[in-house]
């Protein structure tokens, strides 16, 4: 029997081991032959003979099973080795597309204000003088109209110069309290390094009972919003002038590039202007026939936000479908 232990030990493949198994355990195998001898063994020795033989059977089976596992594992390893690839050749470049940084920024802004319980209103691009100017305390002779070079149509309609007309339309269509934002494209006749004839704005409006809405409320939400958009920045309010708000302010954040130290982007002031806001001018409420109300309004340019957040240098590249730029936002 001893030799079979050696043979199992020395088997070098699953197939060879299988041959040994048949030779040992098969019907015509060694063990069967040994058990056949049983009948010739004297009765008093039969017990010992059988015991020894069974012990061999068990031991050989154990050896065999153990060896089989070893050989199978080896065989699998070799098979897998044959399938080896150089994974470093398979580094991949995404083939997904990407969202436009301006639209993506707009989404983030809308997300913030809807979570603060502002409704979203969209309005129309082709507007009339009343909704775009008159109702916003910008009569025809008002010098502030100079600030907004307008695209006109032959029938005296115009392309909205801001999304404020959406606020007027909303106020005319519904009753206070109002809590809304108006995201969308706006148009001014200006085309150079820092201006495009179309850009995107988001404006917000809150209207409630007289005496309820204060400048302090406006300050609160804008400070919170700017920290949500830009992270840990300082926020500064500067008094300013807009025909549709009074008091009005421009809002600066500490420069996100130089952390307020002063750099080229912030013209060495340490501050970046990002928002305009104010308490709604009573003339605006008068235009929509609201009485005994108070409110605040604010507005911002989405391109400016996107350029600051993503450090995009060239405004015009945003409107060219330039994959060089877009693929960076995959």
């Amino acid at each position: 029997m001893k030799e079979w232990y050696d043979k199992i030990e020395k088997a070098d493949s699953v197939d060879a081991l299988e041959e040994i198994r048949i030779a040992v355990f098969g019907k015509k195998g060694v063990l069967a032959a040994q058990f056949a001898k049983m009948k010739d063994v004297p009765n008093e020795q039969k017990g010992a003979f059988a015991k020894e033989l069974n012990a061999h059977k068990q031991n050989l089976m154990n050896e065999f099973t153990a060896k089989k596992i070893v050989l199978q594992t080896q065989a699998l390893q070799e098979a897998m080795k044959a399938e080896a690839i150089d994974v470093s050749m398979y580094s991949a470049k995404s083939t997904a597309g990407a969202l436009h940084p301006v639209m993506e920024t707009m989404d983030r802004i809308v997300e913030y204000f809807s979570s603060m319980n502002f409704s979203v209103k969209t309005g129309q691009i082709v507007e009339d003088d009343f909704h775009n100017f008159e109702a916003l305390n910008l009569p025809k002779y008002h010098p502030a109209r100079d600030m907004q070079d307008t695209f006109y149509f032959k029938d005296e309609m115009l392309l909205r110069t801001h999304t404020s007309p959406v606020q007027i339309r909303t106020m005319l269509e519904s009753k206070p309290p109002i809590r809304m934002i108006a995201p969308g494209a706006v148009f001014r006749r200006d085309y150079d390094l820092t201006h495009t004839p179309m850009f995107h704005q988001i404006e917000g409006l809150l209207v409630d009972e007289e005496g309820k809405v204060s400048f302090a409320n406006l300050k609160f939400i804008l400070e919170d919003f700017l920290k949500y958009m830009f992270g840990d920045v300082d926020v500064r309010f500067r008094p300013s002038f807009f025909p549709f708000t009074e008091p009005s302010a421009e809002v600066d954040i500490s420069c996100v590039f130089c952390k307020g130290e002063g750099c080229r982007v912030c013209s060495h002031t340490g501050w970046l202007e990002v928002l305009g806001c104010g308490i709604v001018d009573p003339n605006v409420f008068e235009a929509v026939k609201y009485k005994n109300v108070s409110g605040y309004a604010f507005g911002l340019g989405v391109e400016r936000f996107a350029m600051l957040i993503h450090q995009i240098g060239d405004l015009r590249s945003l409107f060219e479908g330039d994959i060089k730029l877009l693929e960076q936002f995959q």
Partner: protein
Amino acid sequence: MIVTRSWLDEWIDLSGISTEDIAKTFNSIGLEVDRVHEYRVPQKIVFGRVLECEKHPDADKLNVCKVDVGSAIRQIVCGAANVRAGLDVVVATVGAVMPSGLAIKPVKLRGVESDGMICSAGEIGLPDLGKGIMELDASIGKYEIGQEVSENAVLNDDLIEIELTANRGDCLSIRGVARDLSAAFDRPIKEYVVTDNDEKRGVGRILSLTHEKSLGVNLRYKALDLKELSLPMVVSLRLAQIEEKRESDIESLLYYVTHSTGVVLRAYERDFFTSKDESVAKLVLNEDAKGYACIFTPKKEVASVIGVNQNDASKVKHDNTTICLEASYIPPDIISKKMADNKIDADVMFYRTSRGSEPELEGGLSYCIDLIESCSSSTTYGGSIEHVYEFKEKIVKVTKQEIDEIIGANIDKSVVTKILKNLGFDTSKSSTDVFVVHVPQFRHDIVNKQDIVEEIVRMVGIDNIPSKPFVLEEANRLEDNYFEYKKRSLYRHKAAQSGFFESVHFVFDEKKVLQKYGFETTKEELELLNPIVQTLDTLRPTLLTGLLKAASMNVKNGYARVALFEIGSVFTPLRDESLKASFLMSGERENESLANGGRPAAVDFAYFTQKIADVVGDVELKEFQTQHTLSHTYQSAQVLQNGEVLGELFRVHPEVEKEYGLGTTFLCELDFSKLKHELKTAKPASKYQASFRDLSLLMPKDMAYEKIKNVIEASEIPNLIRFYPVDKYTDEALGENMSLSIRFVLQSDEKTLEEEDITNVMDKILEELNKELGIGLR
């Protein structure tokens, strides 16, 4: 609006306050600082006096001067045309380093030694005055020969440029800006010193003003015999600093005074108003045909339109002549409205009058007279002639509670009173609870209580108001517009995930190009009046041309694979706005890689359609001819979903591909409103196995698959879940026919279909096809 520190100092004492603090204060009170510039003359540049000046023996254009520089008399060679003995000048002495980097050393110029340099304004870092070397006079303040120029405040000024908002006409002057600073720093503003000598010959002897009716303007005139006017250095320098240049010395001087005081000034040649036999110049105030208030001559010739322009013929042309000086005021709302209704040519003064010029005419006029007298040998006539219109005083009432409510903080009553007083508002009639505010005439922008609150807010400082959250009642504000927005966002995300880059284009396009491709553009009578460029002269009726342009640029930039989409507004000829979702794919399907052996397959019709379906859901295509000519005649389809038309999908016409420098390119434009945005419902799914069977049909090459599809669908075959073409085969043996393999998916809700059931179904299909279309198995 540009101010300088030394100029401001003439109206308010700013000692002890740094320029940085002044700039910071400007920002916090709403006068946004654009730019701060410090003029600093380097060391070893001193005041000097030219004692002698002679021609250089060997050079025509050079002079050899003896210059007193305090510590010594130096010989300096000077090339300026205006150098002469007796002049006080700025001298860079040996050892000085000029702003340009030039170091002053003793040199020999054409054999003559020169120990220093007599400087022009530009050479010491000041704005160029264009007159050669600086000719100093007492107007720059006291100086001594030999003193360092860097100690002089006027020549070492700090300039601050302010971006004024449209409402602050009152800050269009140094004095106006000083008035705001006076409130911010709580320091008084300096008053005018009005001097009028009664002993002079009265102005009435040579000048009269008549009017037929009282017009809403204020006018004030003085007259003087102008003689030997020479512009003081401070005037030339400051005008150069504020980047203003006027035609004549007298015009320069008037503009200087206007910039300083805010009062609109004009000067007329007195003779313009006199006829031969008259000794008194007669000015006539009247309206012109368009209703503008004008000054006329007795012969009805216009001398000026008040606040708007002046007839060139009436302007002062000589240095030695009798002139009338006019200070005028017209309310900005009146003149702006007039101009908006009936536009006429306007000069530089209109900017001021339309935003609100200074109404205090007397101060500005006498300031001007004093300045002219100080720099000429002129004599002024005593007194002045006026036209005074009584403007209604504006009174605004506001309670402390209202102020606190708008601001959202408690502002102390004494603080409010002090701020208003320093800004020139009269609050003396106020009661315990109500501020009664008399608004000074120069504050055109203040009309209601919000305006008063704004004044308080900017002086208190917004940063000093504590933020407070708004308390709101719960309300559901999610409505249609919001869901539209979400829908747009959903499809944008799906498109990006399917490999398309989002692009955004202007809603403008070029009419000529659009028409060339057969698009209907905005009707002529509704067209843009003032397009910014010819290539953006109409509203776009499609997003496709924008995508083609972008693809073209990307291919030029070396991209072999271009996939773009845009969801944006388009316009009908009647300018009705709607949203489209458009897609473009061109070139290769994927990146070059091991997987494709560096040769990725090109995008084809099937691939593009698959990508569109990935974004918008299952789609069916129908043969279709597009209205425009961008499409390939034989590869263009209508896109349907559940029987509803979504839009069109096509390969780009080869000619158009060539025009844009593109390879095989596909476009799809869908009506965004037709895309679904709704909750899905699940149907019960069969528990039994599905079976697949293929049929290879022999059919004419030109038979549309749509026909086969319609026949099978119309037969309403039970248990047929789906069917779709999987192989197309042609060869010579088939001639005009082709073989099309269609895969059928069969499944029952009740049992696993047996062979017999399946055979029955397939037979039924074949039977229908044979009956309806005369086609059968290959």
